[in-house]
């Protein structure tokens, strides 16, 4: 029997009168690479925000690794083993590459002793070294001291993944990691994610690039208007009528609209 790392059951979220997430339930298997797809406004990023605690959920339950995290404070959720990247790059523009990565280590270094350790004064300290190693492993050891605002977009995207990885997550949430990348950058990102996945980290990715999703993922969840409309393998997803309707619309609707007017 395969084990689930993440279990979402009966998740609801409304903003005012707008139901953004409506009774969504799905599981993410341990060590899987799951994609969360759907048209714009389907609620994909909202699910990430609910998982990481940016907003509280209205109803439902989130379980990670057997632990109910529904009511855990956002700053503590990362210690449960969940880390994310963002749709629009959310690196700290005034920090250097290495400092951004060291911020990712924060969840593992929250004791008073660690908080008071002068990271900047001893260049050879273990936190800095492990951050440098993580960057090297991801093939972006270039300019660890460079302020990230000056780096190319593709590299910033990968730094986000490295930053999320150094918190030692069991579950890595990636929000459109390939968006805005060119062909070769996408390839490098995919190689990085495969390496991450081989280390046993479970990946949940929101992505519009279907080629990228098919190459990377083994499981797909489709959302539309805040509801789950499909769950299955990448092969099945193309044939599912509900998914096709969500993305392309149907002839019937068109004819209905015509007859109504």
């Amino acid at each position, binding site marked *: 029997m395969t084990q689930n790392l993440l279990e979402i059951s009966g998740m609801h979220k409304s903003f005012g009168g707008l139901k953004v997430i409506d009774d969504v339930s799905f599981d993410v298997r341990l060590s899987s690479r799951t994609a969360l797809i759907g048209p714009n406004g389907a609620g994909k990023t909202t699910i990430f925000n609910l998982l990481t605690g940016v907003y509280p959920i209205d109803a439902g339950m989130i379980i990670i690794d057997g632990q109910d995290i529904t009511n855990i404070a956002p700053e503590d959720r990362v210690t449960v083993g969940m880390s994310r990247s963002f749709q629009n790059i959310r690196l700290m523009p005034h920090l*250097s590459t290495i400092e951004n990565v060291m911020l990712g280590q924060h969840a593992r270094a929250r004791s008073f002793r660690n908080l008071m*350790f002068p990271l*900047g004064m001893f260049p050879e300290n273990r936190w800095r070294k492990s951050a440098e190693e993580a960057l090297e492993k991801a093939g972006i050891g270039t300019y*660890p*001291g460079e302020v990230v605002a000056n780096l190319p977009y593709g590299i910033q995207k990968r730094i986000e993944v490295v930053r999320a990885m150094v918190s030692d997550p069991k579950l890595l949430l990636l929000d459109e990691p390939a968006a805005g990348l060119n062909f070769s950058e996408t390839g490098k990102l995919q190689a990085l994610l495969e390496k991450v996945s081989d280390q046993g980290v479970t990946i949940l990715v929101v992505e519009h690039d279907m080629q990228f999703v098919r190459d990377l993922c083994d499981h797909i969840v489709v959302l539309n208007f805040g509801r789950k409309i499909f769950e299955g393998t990448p092969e099945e997803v193309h044939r599912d009528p509900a998914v096709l309707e969500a993305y392309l619309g149907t002839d019937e609707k068109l004819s209905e609209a015509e007859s109504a007017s």
Partner: protein
Amino acid sequence: MSGYIEAQLIILCLSIIYAYGIYLPAASGQLNLGAAGFITLGAYASAWFNAGTGVSLPIWSSIILAMIFTGVIAFVISFPILRTRGVYMVLATFAFAEVVSGIAINLEFVGGAAGFPVDGHTDVSIIVPVTILVILFSFYFMSTRLGLALRSIHDDESVSTLFGVNVRTAKVVAFTVGAMLMSLGGSLYGHHYNYIEAQTFNVLLSIYILLYVLMGGTQTAWGPLIGAAFFVVVPEALRQIAESAGLKWLAEGRFILFGVFIVLLMVFRPEGVITRTLQDKIGGGLFGHKRFSSKETVSGR
């Protein structure tokens, strides 16, 4: 050392201590216009512990007790104040300073409106080493993981939270420690001039100190040092030079020139004189930003 230079040095040292007190919260994006309030608290508390009615503690104990006293007050008020942001935090801290000043003027046991004579004396041989300690402490503080967290909060609060930073705690600590530094500065002021009155610590002082920090730059721990040094030394030096050159109009109107300069600074260096990028350019060796080559080069921007 001539009396004049010494007097200027004392002003410079006190300004630097005050500036670091404002800088620590400013590094996480909190604008504190309450410097005068914390300085008042430190100056009066230390003076009272040192030679108030019924107490006469040694000068060092007085200064440290005053820091603790100010720290406790700062800690308590930080919770409501840190609920506000941006210009509202400026107003809240300003209001706090006004309240402190109002109370000090009306407390008869610390002299009331007549001011309060201070007993124990600190001279330049104490103030300068203490200032150096404050500078070293601030550099240490900003180089810690907590300092990194504060700088992250400055850039993006919600992302910092998602990486496990307890934003509230970090801000409270920065605000409180900063207040304690200002208290230290206030105590030294009182014990140096041996007379304090609440009116001296007015909003103009708070504005100047915040200006030192913002003009110096909040991205690195160099900012407040450079900002304070610049703002204290340049107007005075300008006066000296103008007077010795016989330019009376310049000596008297130097603040007009200085005002123009501040505007230019805001136009050309909106993030302060010392930015992160500038520090790296001048040689980030102090912070060990070594650059090592890698297989991949940065290309195709």
